[in-house]
């Protein structure tokens, strides 16, 4: 088709979607990927409806559900976990601006969270006898965070990628060192050193909104008002960031992520945009810090350490860096999982559910799935029968975490009274077998999967459940590895290509 045949260059009438391109035509080929994504049938129709729903509908439903959560759960623990999750979501949203949109690897992010927390504590405690009202503190802290982000962002003018990561990590370490030794800062006690700012003397005030103090605890348990406060912060931050992302600034951030040189040459002031991204991320982190300080009635340097940075990064990467919905899902999955895995009984549900789901995801409803499940169950009963025939002490060891599931499992998985060196041997063997699994294909894999699964259950019951603190991070790591293999762009992330 030559240009001469075409209508005048203005808004064309061909905008209306053509009914359906013929098979093999240019357009048919171009839309191939799109068609593959959509399912047919009733489920497909539902999925299409869900996809068509605008983001604010999702947000409204989500915020309403979260706000109704305290109605169903009166336990202070559940409410506190919900609060923590929303706080993590807020942190992840901020990090998403820098990492997901700006493409800047900022490993100093938690320093801004800490900065916000310390600023709040200094502005509303006995430390310097400053007691600003919360409505004044919040904007001050946000501005302080934004300015700090702007300054820490300056090295990004000259550095990118891993170099920038190392420099920002260095600033994070400086923050920790300064805060931990800040009780003799030029002769003044500023940050309270390793004790932090907290306790009765410091008297860090809780939030005071609309003339009401929000006490940290109501008759000993978590005050649910904080859940609503953090939810409101989250909703507002989500919408504001969304608006920025849909503006020319957001497009420029994404251009910068894709190709900084091309962005600069297309008229975008790249250096200024980098600082702006750092500022936005830091401001959100600082805001999150204020809530944290208020709820804990204090700040302590150990909170703002490396593991927290890794956790927030995990949320962003697992959920899908660059997608707001993605990082929220990431925050929920990671935090809820970590909480569930604290308790051995709950951890057991999670473990077996994940295994069954993963098997179903890989094999769907097929003969292989039946073989794997049937084989594993049969193998278990055989092994259990043999072991108990040899000696009763092989199967009547103590169970970790009592619930109905272990009552059933006791007839299947062996739990010896004394494991001896087998604790280490089986654990290492499990890792070896899993590695071996990645090397074989087809029915060999199915055959190997049966003993692997049984060994996994054995190690889980006898080794991993005895050390839940380590186990929960191992499980999280395993999930992260599997998700990154199956979906490199995260659970809800857009597919991205690097070089084509």
């Amino acid at each position, binding site marked *: *088709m*030559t*240009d001469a*045949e*075409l209508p005048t*260059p*203005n*808004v*064309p009438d*061909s*905008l209306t*979607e*053509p009914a359906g391109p013929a098979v093999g035509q240019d*357009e048919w080929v*171009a*839309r191939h*990927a799109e068609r593959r994504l959509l399912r047919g049938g009733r489920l497909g129709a539902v999925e299409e409806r869900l996809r068509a729903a605008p983001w604010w509908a999702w947000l409204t439903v989500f915020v309403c559900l979260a706000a109704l959560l305290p109605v169903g759960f009166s336990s202070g623990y559940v409410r506190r976990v919900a609060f923590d999750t929303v706080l993590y979501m807020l942190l992840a949203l901020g990090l998403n601006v820098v990492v997901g949109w700006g493409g800047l690897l900022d490993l100093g992010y938690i320093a801004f969270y800490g900065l916000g927390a310390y600023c709040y504590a200094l502005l509303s405690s006995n430390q310097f006898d400053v007691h600003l009202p919360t409505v004044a503190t919040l904007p001050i802290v946000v501005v302080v965070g934004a300015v700090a982000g702007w300054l820490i962002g300056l090295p990004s003018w000259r550095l990118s990628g891993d170099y920038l990561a190392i420099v920002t990590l260095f600033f994070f370490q400086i923050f920790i060192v300064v805060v931990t030794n800040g009780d003799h800062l030029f002769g003044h006690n500023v940050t309270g050193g390793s004790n932090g700012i907290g306790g009765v003397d410091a008297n860090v005030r809780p939030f005071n909104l609309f003339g009401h103090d929000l006490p940290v605890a109501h008759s000993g348990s978590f005050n649910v008002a904080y859940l609503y406060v953090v939810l409101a912060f989250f909703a507002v931050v989500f919408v*504001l960031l969304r*608006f*920025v992302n*849909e*503006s*020319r*600034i*957001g*497009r*420029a951030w*994404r*251009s910068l992520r*894709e*190709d900084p*040189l*091309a*962005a*600069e*040459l*297309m*008229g*975008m*002031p*790249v250096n200024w945009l980098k600082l*702006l991204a750092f500022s*936005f991320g830091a401001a959100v982190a600082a805001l999150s810090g204020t809530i944290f300080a208020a709820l804990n009635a204090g700040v302590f340097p150990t909170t703002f350490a490396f593991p927290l940075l890794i956790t927030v990064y995990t949320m962003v990467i697992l959920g899908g860096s660059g997608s707001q919905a993605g990082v929220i899902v990431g925050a929920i999955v990671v935090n809820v999982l970590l909480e569930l895995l604290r308790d051995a009984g709950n951890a057991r549900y999670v473990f077996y559910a994940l295994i069954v789901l993963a098997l179903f995801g890989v094999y769907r409803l097929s003969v292989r799935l039946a073989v794997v499940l049937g084989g594993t169950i049969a193998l278990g009963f055989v092994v259990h029968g043999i072991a108990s025939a040899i000696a009763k002490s092989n199967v009547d060891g103590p169970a970790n975490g009592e619930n109905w599931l272990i009552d059933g499992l006791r007839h299947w998985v062996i739990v010896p009274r004394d494991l001896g060196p087998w604790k280490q041997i089986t654990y290492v063997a499990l890792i070896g077998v899993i590695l071996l699994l990645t090397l074989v294909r087809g029915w060999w894999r199915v055959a190997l999967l049966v003993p692997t699964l049984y060994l996994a259950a054995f190690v889980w019951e006898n080794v991993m459940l005895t050390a839940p603190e380590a186990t929960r991070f191992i499980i999280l790591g395993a999930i992260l590895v599997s998700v990154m293999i199956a979906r490199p762009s995260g659970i809800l992330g*857009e597919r*991205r*290509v690097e070089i*084509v």
Partner: protein
Amino acid sequence: MAEKLLELKRVSMAFGGLHVVNELDLHVDEGEIVSVIGPNGAGKTTLFNLITGVYEPTEGDIVFAGRSIKGMDPHKITKLGIARTFQTLRLFLNMTVIENVMAAAFAHTRAGAFRAMLRTPGMRREEGEIRNLAEERLAFFGQRLMGYRWNQPAYSLSYANRRRLEIARATATNPRLLLLDEPAAGMNPTETHEISELIGKLRDEGGYTILVIEHDMHVVEGISDRVVALDHGVKISEGSFEYVATDERVVEAYLGTKATATK
């Protein structure tokens, strides 16, 4: 004679001891299409990088629309009205086609982060204008970049369409001078012909002044008002296509011997 839109005055560029461009004088008049030719390593792309501010010349001065742009930041030069495409395509691959073009409207639009957060009426009006501008720029390419393609990621485009999208993106910066770095590279004969027509149309209908690097001599012959030949960073010939193509120094630069010119 028309007004000089761009003028390079004795521009030199050296990387250490390597002189890539040497005392180059070059000018482009308003409304002209000038082609730059030369063998590989002649300094053509470096010339583009000098004009757009990626490199700062070690000597000499570059004047655009009566103003020295030497040492300016690239985004400021773009804002003044120089836009370019890249020899090795540099699209924002994971953004949609229309977003690629909309992003390039950054320099001549104003709404900042605060107005975006508040979604002021002015900001929303400007967004509408950016969208219209992008649609108009894409419509310039006929059916090639229309309709359903707008919301596809740029990586899903074919090679030729990526080249077209790069030109569309460059025009969205509202330039006066358009620098095209090998627009016909990697295209088949039909597409090459189309690109030649398109470059003429860009000048006649779009009103852009065009400086183009091209290796395909059919394209150069078809579009150029004037041809400049470079070799080792030095201008070795300048004039009409017929003059430059038969110039002994040019033939020598390409072939290395004093063979008879076949074209």
